């Protein structure tokens, strides 16, 4: 594996290899010496051209735990704010000897462009591009589900037969897209629920069921209920009448939480809009995996960086 650009073309065996490696990385995070010498002497550039806290910090911690040198690069405070193109930025990083580039970009497809362009020979990790994909988030979600279901016996297992309902703003969600491909590849049954205006037209051809009624979805007691953030910053139209109506129809309210069996996991990729798509009680309940997702994110990203960068990415 040279790049991780999307989960759509990630085969099941490859995904399981990353998840199993992440189990070992999680063990390291529980030790007194939380560090491995594996990527000593390698340089990882965090190229974040769109705002992010948890993903950038998570990648930074992951790379440092593997002893890589980390350079953080953001649009603000760099030549990108002076209008430097992606090509020039990439060639600069190449000239400085970057071995891996973790890129977040507002434009869908930017990581593909970088990987296919020949501007740079480093391994590319997509850390979220526009409304396209966010593969490491999907991997950490799958890892979190698997750990809650199987605990220490997780290694080697897929998610066969697990029912996952993804709720809310699917249209703008790269997390939802990556999860649809990855979770179905791992054998899960995925259902999308939300207002018709926020379900993409193309979803009809995805390997998922589609629904519009959250109460009906809750009544079916899915194994996992994944609430998506309402991405107001990407909405240039009125997709729903108002926040109170959204919350009433498609938010995980205290009342809906009480109807879920205690075994249902409540997931959220963060950052949460408390009171909009998820109530505070739901976010803080024992069913919620939000903080586990953050902790597991480091282990999964360590596994991804290991598989991309441990062997020489330039194939010497």
């Amino acid at each position, binding site marked *: 594996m040279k790049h991780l650009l999307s989960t759509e073309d990630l085969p099941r065996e490859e995904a399981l290899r990353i998840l199993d490696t992440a189990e070992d990385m999680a063990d390291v995070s529980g030790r007194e010496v939380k*560090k491995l*010498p594996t990527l000593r002497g390698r340089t990882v550039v965090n190229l974040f051209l769109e705002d992010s806290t948890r993903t950038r910090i998570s990648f930074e911690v992951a790379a440092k735990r593997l002893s890589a040198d980390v350079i953080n690069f953001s649009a603000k405070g760099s030549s990108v704010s002076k209008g430097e193109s992606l090509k020039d930025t990439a060639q600069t990083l190449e000239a400085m000897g970057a071995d891996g580039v973790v890129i977040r970009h507002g434009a869908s497809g930017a990581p593909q462009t970088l990987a296919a362009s020949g501007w740079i020979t480093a391994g590319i990790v997509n850390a979220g591009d526009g409304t396209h994909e966010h593969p490491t988030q999907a991997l950490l979600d799958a890892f979190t589900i698997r750990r809650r279901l199987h605990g220490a016996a997780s290694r080697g297992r897929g998610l066969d037969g697990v029912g996952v309902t993804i709720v809310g703003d699917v249209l703008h969600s790269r997390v939802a897209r990556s999860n649809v491909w990855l979770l179905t590849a791992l054998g899960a049954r995925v259902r999308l629920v939300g207002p018709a205006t926020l379900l993409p037209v193309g979803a009809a051809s995805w390997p998922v069921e589609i629904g519009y009624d959250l109460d009906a979805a809750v009544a079916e007691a899915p194994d996992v209920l994944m609430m998506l953030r309402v991405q107001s910053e990407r909405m240039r139209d009125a997709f729903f009448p108002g926040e109170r109506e959204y919350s009433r129809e498609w938010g995980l309210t205290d009342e809906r939480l009480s109807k879920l069996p205690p075994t249902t996991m409540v997931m959220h990729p963060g950052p949460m809009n408390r009171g909009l798509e998820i109530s505070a009680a739901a976010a803080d309940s024992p069913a919620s995996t939000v903080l586990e997702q953050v902790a597991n994110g480091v282990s999964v990203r360590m596994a991804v960086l290991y598989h991309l960068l441990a062997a020489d990415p330039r194939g010497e």
Partner: protein
Amino acid sequence: MTARTVLQAADVQRAITRIAHEIVESNRGSSDLVLLGIPTRGVELAERLAHTIEHIERVPDPPPVPSGALDVTMYRDDLHRNPTRAPRPTQIPAGGVDGRTVVLVDDVLYSGRTIRAALDALSDLGRPKAVRLAVLVDRGHRELPIRADFVGKNLPTAASERVNVRLAGTDGVEEVTLE
């Protein structure tokens, strides 16, 4: 090239029994011992050695000898040269390694690079009182100043030859062959 059997099942078992006795002798008993096998076959060897040691000291209710697994994939010095390997789980017994005598167990000792990686991995897990090395086969050709304390069989080989260790619990058959 045809494979030649160097050790048969009974030979392997006798080697394990002898190494177990040598470990107990040099440690003056079985207290404070921790056996850590290097995956894959070192783990089974460590378990069998621990089990054998428990039954050497003829006391009623022998105290268990802890054994575990120490994966060294992340500490190897040849990661850049080879296709990426999937790591195996590391399992350290509940008591940890601090202040214990750790016996590293592997099937074949060759260049010594795996053991170098294991020593690094071990130092990230704690500070043992002493570290020893037990191997089923020592085939020579060391590239580092490392030697085994307990050896099942010294096997002179050419670098072009392959030593295959198969164990009952891992492979279903038990033998050491040279091809």
